[in-house]
């Protein structure tokens, strides 16, 4: 039974009842309800337990400011830590309270209330120090017990992210925002209007006001209809503008897109002008036990009776320091709620306020000093501000209003400055930093007439259009005398500043006493304002408490920094469809399908390329597979797909001198048809990449790079050409995906290529090592390059991608009599280690130079200058100890050394003198072999060094970093 539901009124649809469950019990609500309003209609009072002390809590707000009731939604709607006041009720919804077990009524964690005095602010930091916070953090976080993340992605629908552009982005569809959107829309601007609530109207939904002589909501309906009819206006409801970034870029989280397959949509809007009509948020008052279930913001109670036709209680006491609560009290009274009294902390109540109060007793100069009832309010103790004349008034709810704070969050995110306004007793927007204007309550204009006026004015000014005639509006004036806390004698008990994080006045005092006297420090030490609600109702009371205690004006205390998001946003919405494979799609060569069909185990090979790691066969072990592939190359013939290597074609008269500048060695002397292996350095002398340059013609070159560094090398070359040598005639074209290659390697490679059929002479005389030739292979146009990354005779057959699959299959067919094997990256790794060939990321680690690698010859002495030359010379002059590349043979040849393992003197617990960069099972030596970077390694051949592991040491003999064919006869054959 919805016992607290009014028989008529409200923005709910009584013809559409919705069933839902809360903490396992079934209830009914109506379409248009939030979870909070439906719970209140069902007289569910105790809805939550607090974060730290597990105190019983109820519903305190009506929107995103809600500090107390967080729920976890289950099933189809699964999501965590949602404020009950922002959850739109849906049929079949199931929710439960977070932070209590098994239920808020019987919460075993509530024993912590007994120790409450022992856990003040900073308690955890002070207590759980030894041996380290990290040891305790998981258990404490579990005890604090906010909801967990859903364990599966949503089953129905997906998230989406879209971009939009607007001349005018209006945030908030209350009176000011609607007026602004209307003027902008009529002026023909591209308007984007977003509002966080289910329907437009803003605070007009919560109150009973009149515009143009009729109900304000009639004006809202007319305005929305006009906006809907304008093709230049995009109007979204249930859409929160949650971030205001640089260059007028804002994020909008739309939670109810019309397309049912889309769960949420995240808009990224670039706006010419931003109108911030974000309204204001009521703050609470600070008095003992101001967190009991039944203590509610006056504006929230007003919203529940007016918008949801729900009585949040039967008999209210209202406690206020300003005028706005009077209208709330009057609305409640008109809806049949008994309002016992209004306790107003001001000595003099303005006449217009007492007029609104009518027959309700107003107790001027009074404060609430205590609340009776633990799980539900039973009464309020009211006394004079001096503590005299205390009496207890029976009631089941206590409505309080500490004044209104403009929602300056987005304005502040945009780096606009704030100013403390004495007459409003709050912070208001001051200087804008971007093209935005705050209007209406967000600008501290708290009356309806001024909301309409400022909304229209802002747009008229920015668009240069005329001010329209404004509709008349019922006026209410607003006055406030700040009351930062109740300190009347007799006020005893916890007075909460931040309800969600259980931060009390005493906690802030403690922080100040302990020296945390900057508002940002107080925030972090007490965690005040760091909850899901981000202190929307309490932050300014913390600032006020600090100001009182320090005896300084609020302006000098200042506000803490507002950061996105304004309200919680689901990760799904932020990611959009950029999840899993869509974020960074894999790159494939035309052979991927063949690889998969032949059982390849695929790896990622840098730059998102997928390459075969190895091709397991039958019940081979991993090592047996790799050994088989290696032996094929060393003894017969193998083939691998080298397509992912980065490739760039350079054209122009100045390519030669440019390559001389970017490579360490001399490239300009190459003849067409020749290749050369080289290093590129960065200007600080470190190795950027290694690769092969080949001269295709007088002014045409092709440069290959390692797979992972292709983009980096491209950026490096382009930056030099565009910023340092703009006059040089060089054009760089990326051709990585325009050339694929199959590299046939091994002693029988020449025979296989010959058997494929080619018009290119393959003999060592016609096509020697480090030369290439264009022609045909297997009837396909091809370029055959004699480079070798395995140390064997190799023919890199380059073809266009459309021919690659055919080439590959022809090689595999033709190679059968020769015992050809496809080779994966594991075997390639073994083969290059046996030869002592480098791998960026293994031996080249961002500290070594060519000399350390035993490749000083690659650093041209003939060239006066090239990128990195000066820095390498400078560094080497320092004579500091260098780590140099060596080969290692583990003394026990059956022991594998983990890659990356440190070498220490004698294997003792001492600073390392190097590290093992690679260790593989060599099929030619039939043992484990390793490469390492070792201090002064070149002069230590023959020594025995030690690898230090966690619980063992491995002895290894130092040698030249080459285990196979040191003269390179095989690859040159």
């Amino acid at each position: 039974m919805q016992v607290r539901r009014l028989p008529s009124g409200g923005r709910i649809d009584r013809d559409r009842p919705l069933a839902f469950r809360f903490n396992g019990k079934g209830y009914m609500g109506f379409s248009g309800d939030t979870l909070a309003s439906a719970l209140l209609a069902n007289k569910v009072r105790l809805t939550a337990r607090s974060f730290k002390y597990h105190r019983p809590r109820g519903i305190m707000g009506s929107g995103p400011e809600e500090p107390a009731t967080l729920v976890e939604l289950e099933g189809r709607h699964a999501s965590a830590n949602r404020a009950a006041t922002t959850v739109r009720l849906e049929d079949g919804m199931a929710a439960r309270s977070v932070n209590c077990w098994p239920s808020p009524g019987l919460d075993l964690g509530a024993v912590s209330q007994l120790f409450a005095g022992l856990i003040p602010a900073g308690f955890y930091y002070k207590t759980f120090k030894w041996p380290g916070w990290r040891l305790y953090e998981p258990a404490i976080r579990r005890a604090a017990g906010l909801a967990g993340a859903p364990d599966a992605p949503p089953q129905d629908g997906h998230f989406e992210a879209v971009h939009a552009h607007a001349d005018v982005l209006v945030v908030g569809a209350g009176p000011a925002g609607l007026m602004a959107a209307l003027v902008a829309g009529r002026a023909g601007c591209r308007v984007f209007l977003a509002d966080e609530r289910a329907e437009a109207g803003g605070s007009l939904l919560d109150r009973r006001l009149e515009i143009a002589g009729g109900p304000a909501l009639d004006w809202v309906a007319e305005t929305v209809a006009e906006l809907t009819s304008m093709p230049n206006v995009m109007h979204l409801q249930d859409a929160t503008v949650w971030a205001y970034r640089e260059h007028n870029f804002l994020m909008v989280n739309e939670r109810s897109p019309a397309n049912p397959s889309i769960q949420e949509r995240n808009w990224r809007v670039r706006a010419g002008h931003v109108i911030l009509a974000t309204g204001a948020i009521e703050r609470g008052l600070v008095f003992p036990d101001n967190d009991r279930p039944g203590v509610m913001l006056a504006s929230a109670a007003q919203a529940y009776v007016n918008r949801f036709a729900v009585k949040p209680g039967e008999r209210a006491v209202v406690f206020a320091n300003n005028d706005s609560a009077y209208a709330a009290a009057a609305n409640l009274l008109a809806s049949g709620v008994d309002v016992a009294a209004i306790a107003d902390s001001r000595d003099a109540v303005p006449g217009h306020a007492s007029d609104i109060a009518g027959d309700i007793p107003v107790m001027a100069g009074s404060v609430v000093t205590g609340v009776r009832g633990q799980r539900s309010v039973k009464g309020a103790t009211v006394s004079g501000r001096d503590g005299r004349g205390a009496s207890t008034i029976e009631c089941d709810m206590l409505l309080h209003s500490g004044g209104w704070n403009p929602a300056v969050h987005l304005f502040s995110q945009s780096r606009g400055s704030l100013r403390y306004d004495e007459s409003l007793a709050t912070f208001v927007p001051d200087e804008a930093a971007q093209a935005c204007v705050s209007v209406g309550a967000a600008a501290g204009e708290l009356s309806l007439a001024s909301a309409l006026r400022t909304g229209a004015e802002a747009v008229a000014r920015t668009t240069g259009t005329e001010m329209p005639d404004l509709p008349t509006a019922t006026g209410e004036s607003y006055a406030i005398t700040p009351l930062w806390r109740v300190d009347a004698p007799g006020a005893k008990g916890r007075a909460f500043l931040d309800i969600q994080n259980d931060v009390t006045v005493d906690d802030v005092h403690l922080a100040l006493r302990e020296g945390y006297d900057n508002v940002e420090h107080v925030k972090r030490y007490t965690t005040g304002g760091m909850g899901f609600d981000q202190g929307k109702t309490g932050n300014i009371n913390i600032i006020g408490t600090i100001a009182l205690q320090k005896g300084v004006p609020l302006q000098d205390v200042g506000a803490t920094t507002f950061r996105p998001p304004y309200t919680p946003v689901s990760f799904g919405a932020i990611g959009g469809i950029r999840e899993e494979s869509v974020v960074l799609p894999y790159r494939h060569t035309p052979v991927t399908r063949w690889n998969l069909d032949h059982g390849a185990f695929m790896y990622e090979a840098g730059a998102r390329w997928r390459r075969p790691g190895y091709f397991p066969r039958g019940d081979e072990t991993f090592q047996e597979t790799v050994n088989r592939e290696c032996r094929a190359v060393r003894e017969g013939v193998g083939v691998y797909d080298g397509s992912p290597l980065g490739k760039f074609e350079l054209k122009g008269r100045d390519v030669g001198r440019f390559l001389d500048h970017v490579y360490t060695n001399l490239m300009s002397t190459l003849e067409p048809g020749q290749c050369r292996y080289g290093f590129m350095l960065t200007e600080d002398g470190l190795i950027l990449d290694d690769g092969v340059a080949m001269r295709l013609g007088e002014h045409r070159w092709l440069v290959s790079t390692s797979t992972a560094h292709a983009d980096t090398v491209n950026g490096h070359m382009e930056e030099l050409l565009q910023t340092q040598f703009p006059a040089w005639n060089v054009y760089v074209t990326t051709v990585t995906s325009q050339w694929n290659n199959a590299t046939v390697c091994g002693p029988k490679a020449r025979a296989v290529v010959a058997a494929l059929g080619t018009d290119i002479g393959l003999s060592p005389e016609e096509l020697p090592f480090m030369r290439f030739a264009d022609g045909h292979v297997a009837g396909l146009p091809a370029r055959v390059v004699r480079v070798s990354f395995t140390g064997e005779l190799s023919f890199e057959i380059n073809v266009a991608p459309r021919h690659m699959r055919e080439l590959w299959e022809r090689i595999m067919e033709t190679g059968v009599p020769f015992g050809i094997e496809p080779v994966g990256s594991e075997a390639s790794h073994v083969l290059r280690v046996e030869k002592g060939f480098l791998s960026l990321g293994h031996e080249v680690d961002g500290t070594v130079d060519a000399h350390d690698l035993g490749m000083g010859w690659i650093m041209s002495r003939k060239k006066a200058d090239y990128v990195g030359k000066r820095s390498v010379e400078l560094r080497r002059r320092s004579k500091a100890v260098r780590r140099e590349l060596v080969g290692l043979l583990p003394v026990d040849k059956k022991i594998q050394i983990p890659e990356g393992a440190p070498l220490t003197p004698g294997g003792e617990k001492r600073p390392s003198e190097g590290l093992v960069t690679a260790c593989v099972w060599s099929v030619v030596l039939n043992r484990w072999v390793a490469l390492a970077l070792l201090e002064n390694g070149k002069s230590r051949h023959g020594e025995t060094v030690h690898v230090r592991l966690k619980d063992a040491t491995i002895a290894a003999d130092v040698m030249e970093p080459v285990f196979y064919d040191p003269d390179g006869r095989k690859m040159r054959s």
Partner: protein
Amino acid sequence: MMLIPCPFCGHRNESEFAYGGPVKPDRPEPHETGDEDWVEWLTTVPNPLGPVEERWWHVKGCGTWLTIWRDTRTHEIVEGPGDAG
């Protein structure tokens, strides 16, 4: 997300660009520069509180390396000393 003016493509989202860092003085002639001056040029990157000249690469667009002046306090793209007139 900043809006960066590309001389060829107009204003484009920052996500289309790669950051190239602040613009250093021209590369000194390596063999006519003392060690200290070389290290200074190599390692000292302008890092002012205020406008800084920096490079961006329009890598997901036209490929241009461009130069802008950005105010490090606000992300505003501002006129550089040489831009006036």
